[in-house]
């Protein structure tokens, strides 16, 4: 309990908040690394997942790959990558991308795949192209699940981005490593609390986003073709 109080005191010290090694700067770096890794992972995983979900082909391959990727220990991968790429941000970002891909991929293909085939056939019947089916029918209906995948990936990445400090002067992980090695446990706990706070903040934002996406697909909207199409078809099915 004393340690906890010390950590709060550490957090309360204004001198720890400003400057090049201050909390504000470190938190911004942390978010930057998280966003960067998620953006790269999403660029890779979302199109692949959507394609797999839409064509219903290659599902077992994707499941196998993402299952294997989930089993990779991030610190081990980071060390290996850093041995090849050198110190700096490349290796941590690569490791975080590998961490984020499985959740994003699973969210994308599971979401698209779960769209009722009758709805998709109906869309095809009214003359939509495959691209239109994906963008106007499947994606809007899959949105809650896709955002769910993003939410899981974000939580993992923001918590693991502490490892960026393993080989670079970046992020909130610096407080953890410095505190651990110099037995400055209040600093270490303060770093952990900051990471937890950041994770909760992102979680709240994404939960809200997921809620909005769910509402858009389930309630009867006044406008929006796909939902209306889905809703009207539900009666016929």
């Amino acid at each position: 309990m004393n340690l906890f109080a010390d950590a709060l005191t550490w957090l309360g010290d204004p001198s720890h908040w400003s400057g090049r090694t201050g909390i504000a700067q470190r938190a911004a770096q942390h978010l930057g690394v998280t966003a960067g890794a998620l953006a790269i992972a999403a660029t890779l995983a979302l199109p692949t997942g959507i394609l797999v979900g839409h064509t219903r082909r290659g599902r077992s391959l994707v499941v196998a790959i993402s299952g294997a990727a989930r089993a990779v220990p991030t610190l081990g991968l980071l060390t290996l990558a850093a041995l090849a790429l050198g110190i700096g941000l490349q290796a941590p970002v690569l490791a975080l991308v590998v961490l984020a891909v499985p959740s994003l991929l699973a969210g994308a293909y599971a979401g698209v795949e779960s769209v009722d085939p009758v709805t998709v056939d109906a869309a095809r019947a009214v003359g939509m192209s495959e691209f239109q089916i994906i963008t106007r029918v499947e994606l809007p209906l899959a949105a809650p699940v896709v955002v769910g995948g993003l939410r899981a990936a974000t939580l993992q990445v923001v918590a693991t981005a502490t490892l960026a400090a393993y080989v670079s002067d970046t992020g909130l992980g610096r407080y953890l490593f410095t505190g651990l090695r110099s037995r400055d446990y209040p600093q270490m706990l303060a770093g952990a609390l900051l990471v937890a706070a950041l994770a909760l903040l992102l979680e709240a934002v994404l939960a809200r986003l997921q809620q909005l996406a769910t509402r858009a697909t389930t309630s009867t909207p006044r406008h929006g073709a796909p939902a209306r199409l889905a809703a009207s078809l539900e009666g016929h099915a």
Partner: protein
Amino acid sequence: MKLRTRTALTAATITTALALTGCASSDPLAQEDAASQSASSEIVIGSQDYYSNEIIAEIYAQALEAQGHAVDRQFRIGQREAYLPELEDGSIDLFPEYSGPLLQYWQPETPARLADDVYAELVTAIPDGLRALDQSPATDQDSYVVTRAFADQWNLATIADLAKVTEPLTLGGNSEGENRPNGPQGLKNAYGVDVAFSPIEDGGGPLTVKALADGDIQLAIIYTADPTIAENDLVTLEDPSGLFLASHVVPLASDAVDQEAADTIDRISAAMAPEDLVALNARSVDEQAPAATIAAEWLRAKNLMS
């Protein structure tokens, strides 16, 4: 509290295991004989949870056994905070230590940095019931290293020579190094050299060596006894101002270690050159050879098994 319980449990387990192996490997009569003999002269030897320290402890153990002493090995105990109280209360009799860090345990504010000053201070700082035997020339301390190419390019031999380098310098090391006395600030105070800092959390391991080779960092902090230095053709910069605390191998002994045993240990310390310690460590790292084998072969090679 938890740690202490675990240490006690481990100690109990080891003791039981030793007792059991003792029963199994020798006939009961001989056992009794040995036990009654050793009651007065059994020497408990401890070691840190650090492979290099364990090898030194094993060397002590085998040399004393060869002399007819009964030895109880309590190896891989852990941090100084865990085992020094056991030495102070007489549960452990002999422990390979390192002069500077040991002195700092009792005198955190000590200004002594160079080997002889540290040893002189240490002798007076040690509490009653314990004593430091002779310190060995072998050291295991932090040092600044550079690549051979970089040392040749700027003609570097000592840390002070870094002042000649006109390019920006970056020091790589564990993150706590940034604020330690031997970090950038200490380097500036002691030698007037400005360096930037880049954290690499592998304690002078392969990532640090890679960063040196890539030129991402020019300076790294690596233990002098680390085989990495020779393997990667790195150059250790001399430290005439004593920026790094001297850390010579020094045996810490209780009164249970008699003069004869102490003489044996002193002979070992004198025979152990800095290169010897590096070579011992290299055998452990490269060949994964067990401490007992490494110790026995070194003792034989140095003709210390009498």
